[in-house]
């Protein structure tokens, strides 16, 4: 009896400790994000105050208003930056996913000469730090005249993302049993139909997650974009953040406001795709 009770108490205690630890860990992870959101609504005086003011007493939209105001009044071309980011990220993600699907499917389903060497080669490209490429890229892009263009940035991000999407999607197609496509072929599908009507929908969840990764990589990338974009025509939002720095001052409030605008689409996208991620995991077509 007593042994039972003490075990039950211990189980409760452990659970409590578990939840507390999780709470603390999550707080530490989330705090910087919250701080940014909070700062975007506060005047610079309060942000810079020492000792820090934890509980805000003056929240307003001044930073946002200033950001959207014209140049010279502290404004930056937010809408243009946003569109640049969107065009570059969406296009490069779409291309990376298409190439990744073709490549991942080939690696998962076919045997060909040099398969593992090619695969390792793709992975090795990921080992090169992006910044190390910035100077060579800059020179090449400048020579062929695609510096400061959407096309140049899309090309860069496709190259960055393709090895990763191939690797991820290969893994997901491996989990789709070969028999599904064979059954579809026997049911009257061509090879192409079997892929699009059976294998693709089954692997959709995985492809979507590869898509999120690729999108977020392009959306958040700063190091290369800061070198390869020069003007409003192609600057992405992370690069746009630099507009808030001037020779002697840093406009923290404005920066935070732009950062919040950057975070929102990423959050929305993740939520949208998350539904797919869960819906896609209803396996059970084969005995496993």
């Amino acid at each position: 009896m007593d042994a039972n009770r003490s075990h039950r108490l211990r189980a409760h205690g452990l659970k409590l400790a578990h939840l507390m630890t999780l709470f603390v860990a999550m707080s530490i992870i989330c705090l910087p994000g919250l701080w940014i959101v909070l700062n975007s609504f506060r005047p610079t005086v309060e942000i810079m105050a020492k000792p820090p003011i934890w509980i805000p007493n003056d929240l307003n939209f001044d930073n946002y208003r200033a950001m959207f105001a014209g140049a010279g009044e502290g404004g930056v071309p937010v809408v243009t930056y946003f569109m640049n980011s969107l065009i570059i990220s969406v296009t490069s993600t779409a291309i990376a996913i298409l190439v990744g699907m073709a490549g991942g499917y080939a690696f998962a389903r076919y045997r060909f000469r040099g398969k593992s060497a090619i695969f390792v080669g793709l992975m090795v490209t990921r080992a090169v730090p992006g910044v190390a490429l910035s100077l060579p890229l800059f020179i090449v892009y400048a020579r062929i005249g695609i510096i400061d263009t959407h096309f140049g940035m899309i090309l860069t991000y496709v190259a960055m993302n393709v090895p990763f999407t191939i690797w991820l999607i290969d893994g997901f197609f491996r989990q789709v049993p070969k028999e599904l496509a064979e059954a579809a072929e026997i049911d009257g599908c061509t090879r192409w139909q079997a892929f699009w009507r059976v294998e693709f929908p089954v692997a959709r969840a995985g492809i979507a997650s590869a898509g999120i990764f690729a999108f977020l990589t392009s959306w958040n990338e700063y190091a290369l974009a800061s070198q390869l974009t020069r003007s409003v025509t192609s600057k992405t939002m992370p690069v746009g953040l630099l507009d808030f720095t001037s020779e002697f001052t840093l406009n923290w409030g404005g920066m935070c406001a732009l950062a919040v605008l950057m975070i929102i689409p990423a959050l929305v996208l993740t939520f949208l795709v998350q539904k797919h991620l869960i819906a896609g995991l209803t396996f059970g077509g084969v005995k496993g």
Partner: protein
Amino acid sequence: MAEVHLEKVVKKYGELEVVHGIDLDIGHNEFVVFVGPSGCGKSTTLRMIAGLENISGGNIRIGDRVVNDLPPRARNISMVFQNYALYPHMSVRENLGFSLKIAGKDKAEIEAAVDEAAAILSLTPLLDRKPGELSGGQRQRVAMGRAIVRHPDVFLFDEPLSNLDAKLRTQMRVEIKKLHRKIKTTIIYVTHDQVEAMTLADRIVIMRNGSIEQQGTPLEVFANPVSTFVATFIGSPPMNLIDGVVKGGQVVFSDGTSLPVPPRYSAAEGQRVQYGVRADNIMPIGHALPPEEHMAELDMTVSLSEPLGTETILFGEISDTEIQAKMLNPRPVEPGETMRFQITLDKCHLFDAESGVSLRT
């Protein structure tokens, strides 16, 4: 009408030949079972008929068409896979109707065909579920339903029951047989389970190392195995085989005991042979079937008994070879007890010791 003809069908993977020129004619509505141990080429042969593997030589004809280079969709066949291969993102209804939808049939027609197939396999209450929500037996029935919905010329089954538990397997076996009665189509069925082969087949094709070892009705291959391979593969428990030498019309075993050469078999004097006797034909006297024309008797010490209810399997030894015998109307048997056994010579077999080939005249 759909006969299936294989003419010298060969399959090679690079240099490695895994199916060596198979000839086989399968009649309309016939239920043919390919059986053999793993790696014997039975699944590969089935997949070549399906069009999932291309053939390296020979011809495959379905009906009067040569289908060698036709893709699976042009062969009018359907197939049930070992792991079912149901489309996990579709409901049972969509799974069943998928082939008709691909064929561009209109909605009403698809619905009628799906309802009919669902009724045959008692799937009607499950039509709106996803495969993930079904039990193994139900998934198996959906896989069969997907196959029958299109009224194909030929049904192919690739070890469809091997993922089910023993009880369900017996049940589905009966359902498959009933299904064949109902829909009257040519069926080619692959299994490594000789019980499935015996119970389902109109004709058994026993394969070994990429060739056909023997084919015939279940009773023919059981009664007249052409080799020790077939003799030990078909029938449970497997046929007892005892090494011996022929001397003066007797087969003498290494421990000195001997049995007469069975009727209808002939062997040269001094030839090394294997003597084959099934458990059903070696029974303890007093617990046996009434004797037939040619009988022999010998003593054997029982080392182990396996009671099965209506009969008991007795384990003993003749010349260092483990023998399984069958006891009818069983009584308890203690290990170590020596009993006298009767052997029905008319049902015994003799094989050449070297080649394993039957010495039947």
